[in-house]
């Protein structure tokens, strides 16, 4: 690589949990959505990704949760070049990554409880080993009385909180969230932020894509700012 990746956390880029080396990405034959990204996220770091709509925030997250491949460059997760990870091993890598999708991606035929427990079931855990943890988590995100509810009957904010619960229930090593506070009120937004901070303290590397400048300001966490697919600022948010 021609350039050494920036490490926004200040630790050695080689030991980063996430590392992008000259990464570009395009959808099909379209223009590049992401251009020449170079950065590294150290283990246990907490970052926000900001930028205008269409700047490439969601695309950046897609590369991290293995829903897309770079058109150029290398993406490393947990020290491995994801292009070299076999199809058999990719699911195991995904299980270490919790994702709060912008469109939630809840399964409508499963109850809120079943949705929240989904990653644990997929990981092969026995129900008795997690049922109380799931109930506690749902209670914490304010869905104590909605555990049996099916997603179509949930309000937007409830869906968002359920999506967050599902993303964190497995205590992932990396937590990615795409606009996680977009549909909740200010107070719930702060609670969600505190949950992310708590998970971060427990060792998770957190990356949140958001438009919520207030949330970013309150957190005081470093920011990756994207402008038309280019990373224009890495490090503590100016003025934070």
């Amino acid at each position: 690589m021609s350039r050494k990746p920036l490490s926004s956390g200040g630790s050695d880029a080689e030991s980063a949990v996430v590392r992008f080396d000259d990464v570009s990405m395009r959808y099909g034959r379209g223009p590049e959505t992401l251009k020449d990204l170079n950065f590294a996220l150290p283990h246990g770091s907490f970052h926000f990704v900001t930028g205008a709509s269409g700047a490439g925030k969601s695309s950046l997250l897609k590369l991290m949760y293995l829903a897309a491949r770079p058109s150029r460059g290398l993406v490393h997760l947990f020290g491995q070049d994801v292009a070299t990870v076999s199809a058999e091993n990719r699911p195991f890598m995904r299980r270490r990554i919790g994702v709060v999708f912008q469109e939630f991606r809840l399964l409508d035929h499963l109850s809120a409880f079943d949705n929240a427990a989904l990653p644990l079931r997929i990981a092969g855990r026995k129900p008795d080993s997690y049922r109380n943890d799931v109930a506690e988590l749902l209670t914490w995100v304010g869905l104590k009385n909605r555990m049996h509810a099916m997603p179509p009957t949930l309000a937007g904010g409830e869906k968002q909180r359920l999506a967050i619960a599902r993303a964190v229930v497995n205590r992932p090593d990396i937590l990615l969230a795409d606009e996680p506070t977009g549909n909740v009120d200010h107070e719930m937004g702060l609670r969600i932020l505190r949950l992310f901070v708590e998970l971060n303290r427990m060792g998770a590397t957190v990356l949140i894509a958001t438009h919520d400048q207030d949330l970013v300001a309150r957190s005081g966490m470093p920011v990756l700012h994207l402008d038309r697919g280019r990373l224009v600022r890495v490090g503590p948010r100016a003025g934070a």
Partner: protein
Amino acid sequence: MSDIFDVARWRPAPFLPESDAHDGALTFVVAVLCFLACLTALGVIASDRAARGWSDDLASEATVIVRPKTTESPDSAAARAAEALAGAPGVSEARAIERAKAEALIAPWLGPGVDLEDLPVPRLVAVTLDPERPATAAGLDRALKAAGVDAVVDDHSMWIADIRRAAGLTRWFGLGVFLLIAAAAAAVVAFATRAGLAARRDVVETLHLTGAQDAFIAELFQVRFARTAAVAGLFGAAGAAIIGAFLRLVGGGAGLTPVLPVKWIDLLAVAPCPVAAALVAAVAARLTAAALIREMT
């Protein structure tokens, strides 16, 4: 539903919805195609049996035309011929046909108003051959000559070749139609399965992104669609079996008509249908799920 959620009693729900609108359409399409394929199979079996029957009937009989000598009556000559043939190897029965019956046989060819008394109506002997070791025309001829009977043996060979050719064509045509319908059924089952699975792309994506292994997801859909197709195949096969049973009942021993003789045992031919439909759906679902997952990565 109570608002109280009892965590202790919670049991994981199936990963896939129990049923939805897509399943109804899939079940209907698969059931109809299985019905048609099974009905064709029954038709092919019956027509094959009919075709075999035609040629077997002809091959198991021979007709002898007796030319009486001037010294004996036609009836006596026919009786002698029947007696000689009855003892010949490969013959089960030989029976002289009375003059009245012989006249009745040729009357339609001569038209009304002809006095048959004035005509030298040949005497016929109907010979039923041993189905295990049927006598040949040459063998019958030898037996007649040994008895001193002047006669011509017609073993129907001229007709049998034509009938066998027609029977063979009928058999191959039926088999061809069956294969065509079975292939169409398999293709539609596969397409319907693909459509049903594509409609659940969101489930595939969510499971995939949550860390489910590709084989696990494919197996979920494979089992699900195989089950749906098996149920549909069962309905289709049962419908065809009911029609077959109806034909057998209303047609008596020979089926609806002797042209399409259905037997009870023929109904077993529909039995593999649910399994075949399930296999086709399973393969289609697995391939489609694998393709969907490939698209996602």
